[in-house]
């Protein structure tokens, strides 16, 4: 019978095939585009509302220009927007792997691709790409629309300003960082709901448990993803309550990088060692 033989000659496998497979897998669940689309709308709407408020209540020329630039940028990506990105990014990251464990699909996946590290890296790469796109679209569209509203009050910011660019980049990159943390916890916990709860605890609640009062706790706090985003979103310290152990921008970028890389590294080691 013809089905016994493959119609075309066997092509050597490539990592790109795994990326394509994980990409297909990611988008073949109906809920995913909905979650990303609705989250984008929600963030943009919340930011627009904030910008409109500033627009309606600000008299041009008032206030320190540096502080007003901060106000304008904060309207482009309010804290609630960061919370939504954290939830969606972390949640999706947790689900893409915990969902495979919860359904048993992971066994089918690993029986097809015994190279577990390659499977995990492909998953991490696709997740990072999708969430970076999501973060960039969300933060970018929000920035464009909100600054256009604020422009006629004279405080609209431009991406040609390095601090504004940093502000938007910090927001866009926050989603994939949270996603990779979710991926790591999803690999560890293997249970969809448990993985999402674990991710929320680490990303949301851990920062509120740590004080900035002592040197070592301040260091610990600044090494968490959400406080790192907060630092990167702070372009001026004018108008801020001074602290003894302030966070640095370089430290915040490092925090992003270390959480992302460590998450992938831990997940890779765990998936290699475990029975499935």
């Amino acid at each position, binding site marked *: *019978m*013809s*089905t*016994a*033989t*493959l*119609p*075309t000659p*066997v*092509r*050597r*496998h*490539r990592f790109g*095939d*795994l990326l*394509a*497979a*994980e990409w*297909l*897998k990611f988008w*073949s*669940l*109906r*809920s995913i585009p909905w979650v990303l689309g609705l989250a984008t709308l929600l963030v943009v709407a919340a930011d627009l509302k904030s910008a409109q408020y500033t627009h309606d209540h600000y008299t041009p020329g008032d206030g320190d220009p540096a502080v007003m630039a901060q106000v304008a940028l904060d309207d482009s990506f309010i804290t609630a927007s960061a919370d939504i990105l954290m939830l969606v990014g972390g949640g999706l990251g947790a689900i893409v792997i915990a*969902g*495979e464990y919860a*359904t*048993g*699909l*992971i*066994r*089918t*996946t*690993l*029986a*097809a*691709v*015994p*190279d577990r590290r*390659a499977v995990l890296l492909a998953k991490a790469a696709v997740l990072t790409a999708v969430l970076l796109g999501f973060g960039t679209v969300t933060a970018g569209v929000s920035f464009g629309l909100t600054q256009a509203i604020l422009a006629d009050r004279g405080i609209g910011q431009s991406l040609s300003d390095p601090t504004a660019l940093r502000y938007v980049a910090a927001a866009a990159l926050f989603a994939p960082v949270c996603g990779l943390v979710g991926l790591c916890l999803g690999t560890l916990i293997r249970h969809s709901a448990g993985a999402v709860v674990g991710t929320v605890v680490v990303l949301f609640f851990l920062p509120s448990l740590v004080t900035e009062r002592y040197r070592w706790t301040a260091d610990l706090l600044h090494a968490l993803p959400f406080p790192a985003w907060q630092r990167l979103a702070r372009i001026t310290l004018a108008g801020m309550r001074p602290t003894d152990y302030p966070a640095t921008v370089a430290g915040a970028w490092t925090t992003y990088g270390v959480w992302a890389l460590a998450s992938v590294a831990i997940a890779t080691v765990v998936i290699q060692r475990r*029975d*499935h």
Partner: protein
Amino acid sequence: MIEVNELTKRYGRRTAVDRLTFTVRPGHVTGFLGPNGAGKSTTLRMALGLNDPTSGTVTVDGRAFRGLPRGLREVGALLDAGDVHGGRTGVAHLRVLARSNAIPRGRVEEVLAEVGLTDAAGRRIGGYSLGMKQRLGIAGALLGDPPVLLFDEPLNGLDPEGVLWVRGLFRRLAAEGRTVFVSSHMMAEMEHTADRLVVIGRGRLIADESLTEFAARAGRAAVTVRAAEPERLTAVLRAAGAEIRPGPDGSLDVTGLDAGRIGELALEQRLLLYALTERGASLEEAFMELTADSVEYLAGEPR
């Protein structure tokens, strides 16, 4: 070819697989039999590199499966029909698998047609019956046109037509020179599917032989006789060395003499026979007898 060598898996103090050694050869459908909890699934998972053995090895065509970069062209496997995501469509599930192994997309349509799922391919797997999921799993195993195929309880949930189809498929795959290894806890399923058997109980090897050899273990064949004067016939046959057990309807269950000899004796004594039926040894009985000591979960009182 699958080579299992001194394979052992312990979970804490429980030994799931205990120094198993056997070989599954190409060109045959080999049944992998054992009661529930005998270690069949654990063995298959180790063969697929999903679980690491505590000690010992299992290789597929001479190599450890876990060391391979991609699997579908080497081994096609259906471990559990439920190992899918219910939110995906059947065709999406197979396309992901095919893509991960650089298998052309057209192959997905081929295997869907092969298992009879073409019409259901666009529906989400969550709405499939167990039988349809089994078919989808079999389609996935066939994707890479592999020389070795592993199936864990593939007949579960299939309708009678599906069971016939699967048997035909397994035989065809074996006839093409592939290694086909099929687990089951039901002898009756294997009797018409496999031509070789590997039987395990409590993780240990009990038998590794052809179906014919296994059948020979099933004890002597018996002859059922119905006679006009069962008491006289009993005496005659006992005198000739037979063992006789009275059946429920006045028939006699005779072992130790074949049907021809019983007929001769009856004729010599001018005894009228109504029926003389040879009954082959039951594989099911042989299987039950062999595994009786190694049944993990026994219903009823403790033995």
